[in-house]
């Protein structure tokens, strides 16, 4: 319809939420436990440093995207690296996004099974998540962005519920600041990086966002700022609520913390918390599926719409999740992902940026969509 065609682009405001919702996901619950293994009481510093590091990565991605203003990374990969290497890397990106997506599904179903649906087979929970995801991602990008903006309130609600825990906290657990030393904090940063992943969305969404380059950079930075604050809040709250030995035992400290709260009207707020978190996790999953299906669509036909690739992307993701749900593989899976995170999120963009600067390659003036 004409009226919708006019402004088929996202606003830079919507870009903020696209990135936030993709970044914040299953990592929210397990983050503290992960970082705490290395950084202990200084985990919150690790998270802040990770946020700063991500900001640097975002700047690099932005510089790269700015050179190819009207193209997604899939479009300029072959132009910069040549057809064969470009296609191979393109394929790797699709696989990486699918792996991350299925990892999200696995983590999600694992947590759900541990906390609520103990007897429900995991593939049913996975299938449910995939169905909802398919239902959204098959729409156009603007609908996806609208939905992401709409469910942003879940993040706020998560903060509000968690803020109740400040009734019984002990700030002394934080002291002395810097107790673990720089090395452990750095290891903590590495652990936190996977939870921050999701800002790759910038590489794929960039041409579909209206506004100046500056606005887009601002949007990505605001998104990262919010994520950093939310994660820092979550980690900090968990650290001051639980003592270090307790934390070592709790896989999802946020949930245990919320579980102990009691209101006059409702009990067990962790169940509500988990329900809200389900939405947050689902949007993160949707973000990755979107990126994967756009890559998949581009792989077979340049400039085609992502919508036709969605069933395949969701199907493959679901199959991967069902195959690798076994806890034996999960550790390996996590290790692969945290390594490939650096390659795809920062390694490839830096190489692309360097090559394109050296060879003066820049965008061809054409709009795709």
């Amino acid at each position, binding site marked *: 319809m*004409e*009226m919708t065609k006019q402004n088929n682009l996202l606003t830079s405001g919507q870009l903020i939420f696209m990135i936030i919702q993709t970044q914040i996901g299953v990592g929210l619950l397990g983050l503290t436990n992960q970082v705490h293994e290395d950084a202990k009481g200084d985990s919150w510093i690790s998270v802040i440093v990770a946020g700063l590091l991500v900001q640097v990565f975002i700047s690099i991605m932005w510089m790269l995207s700015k050179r190819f203003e009207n193209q997604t990374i899939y479009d300029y990969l072959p132009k910069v690296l040549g057809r064969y290497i470009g296609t191979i890397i393109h394929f790797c990106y699709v696989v990486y996004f699918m792996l991350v997506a299925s990892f999200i599904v696995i983590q999600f179903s694992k947590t759900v099974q541990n906390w609520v649906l103990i007897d429900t087979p995991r593939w049913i929970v996975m299938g*449910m998540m995939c*169905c*909802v995801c398919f239902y959204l991602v098959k729409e156009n990008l603007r609908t996806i962005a609208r*939905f992401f*903006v*709409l469910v942003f309130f879940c993040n706020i609600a998560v903060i509000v519920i968690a803020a109740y825990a400040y009734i019984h906290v002990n700030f002394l657990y934080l002291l002395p600041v810097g107790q673990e030393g720089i090395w452990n904090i750095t290891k903590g940063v590495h652990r936190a990086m996977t939870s921050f992943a999701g800002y790759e969305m910038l590489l794929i969404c960039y041409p579909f966002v209206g506004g100046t380059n500056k606005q887009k950079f601002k949007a990505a930075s605001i998104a990262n700022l919010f994520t950093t604050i939310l994660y820092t809040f979550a980690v900090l709250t968990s650290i001051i609520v639980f003592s270090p030995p307790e934390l070592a035992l709790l896989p999802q400290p946020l949930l245990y913390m919320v579980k102990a709260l009691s209101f006059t009207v409702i009990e067990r707020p962790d169940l509500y918390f988990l329900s*809200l978190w389900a939405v947050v996790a689902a949007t993160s999953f949707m973000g990755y599926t979107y990126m994967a299906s756009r890559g998949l669509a581009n792989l077979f036909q340049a400039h085609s719409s992502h919508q036709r690739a969605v069933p395949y992307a969701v199907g493959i993701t679901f199959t991967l999740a069902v195959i690798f749900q076994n806890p034996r593989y999960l550790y390996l899976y996590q290790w692969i992902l945290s390594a490939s995170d650096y390659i795809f999120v920062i390694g490839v963009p830096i190489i692309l940026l360097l090559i394109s600067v050296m060879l003066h390659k820049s965008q061809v003036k054409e709009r795709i969509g």
Partner: protein
Amino acid sequence: MGFFQKMFSNNPRKSSSISKMPVLTPQPLLPNIQENINYVKEALFHTDDLIHQTLSIPGYNSEFLFLYSMCDQKKIRDEILKPISDHRHLDQELKEILIDMRANKHDDLENVIDLLVKGNAVLFIEGFTECYVIEVRSSHERNVAEPSNEKTVEGSHAGFVESLTINLQLVRKHIENRNLVVRRYKLGKQTRAETVLIYLNNLANPELIDEINERLRSINADNITSTEFIEEYIEDTSLSPFPQLLHTERPDRVIANLLEGRAALLAEGSPTALLMPVTFFSFYQSPDDYYFRSFSGSFIRFIRIVSFVIAICLPAYYIAVVSFHYEVIPQDLLLPIKSSIEHIPYPPILEALFMELTIELLREAGIRLPGPVGQTIGIVGGLVIGDAVIKAGLVSNAMIIVVALTAISSFVVPSHEMSSSVRILRFPVMIGASLFGFFGIVYSLMMILIHLCSLHSFGTPYFAPVAPFRLKDWKDMIIRFPQWKLNQRSNDPAPQKLSQEGYSGEGHHGDDQAE
């Protein structure tokens, strides 16, 4: 799959009988009266309500024809017979008689036949090459009384009727503005129903009007008898639980929407106007909100939105809590609820379905039966069945409370279509809750929200101003700001100009020192 595709296929090439509208060639008047009358009679297949009478105009041999089922005898006396008898004694010309009759000249017989069917009388005079058509249509109009399905406490109590002319007049009377445009359409190949599209030319988005025009023109159907039929042909997504056109029988609602840059569709014989484009929240607004003060208006709107949430989620929430998450019930409440559901033999989802269906049955029975009997059914059903069902131990007390609250909430919506879609939507949510507890609710709500985000009504996003988010339009969404604060129209119908008022009276509201 092939079978289903064939069954639901709507491809014109495949369906065998596609009847083209027969193009009638104009038929000039025949020289002889009798030949003309015979031609008309043939064309109407000698229908028995066609009457032909001889008229005694001095000096002329003339006859007139009419369908008595469509014509008013009194009008025939006043419009046709009286002018002739008035002029009998004077030697007046025929011309003046015809002027008194308010007759129109016609020379195409096919056209005349169409007019005859509409309730005109046709006068043939020997030796003339034209015939005369006199409007003597009988009309039975009911009063412009307040529609029973859209009552308001304050404000105008007028309602649309079955006559298009009166309805248009009701609208025009309130918008005495040269920008109010009426576009006529004849819809339906058999019925040729007269349909009008009205909009304000300086407000409504021209692209919107073009789109509506295109959709109306593309209707290729035999029978269109009322606006509700048109709705399904022109809406964006027919396979959606949510209505995408707002039905109303209230002129003030139509006027208010026209002034926001929307368009309205009215049809002859139908008291319902269709408003487009609309958003989800239009269905939760009633003219009452604007007639009350800002505070109470906002409060009522808030209650309505809460009613939407209750109507969809409450039974599902109860089912999820009782069958999965009984931990969330506070300790003091646990015992009463436990004692109430302890001896119920059925799972909560069956209880809920049983009671919900009972309420739907009662509602339907209450509508179909005549007034007083309908109320009796409501009382018998509600009180007697409700009480007996608990005593018999089929359904728990708590479930009755939940179901009753849900039923009341679903009727709070000012729009009947939205109310029925809400009643349908709660079933999938309930089933989701019975299978997966809270997660089932969350996932089915997500599905509903995704669907709402993807819906469009004539090119405008259906769930505006929430998705896409536009804070300025929230002033008139759940909370209704005072009129002098609503400086801009809502953005969703994409009106040509957003500003609707300038500085109007903010000075009285706080600047006390001036006095």
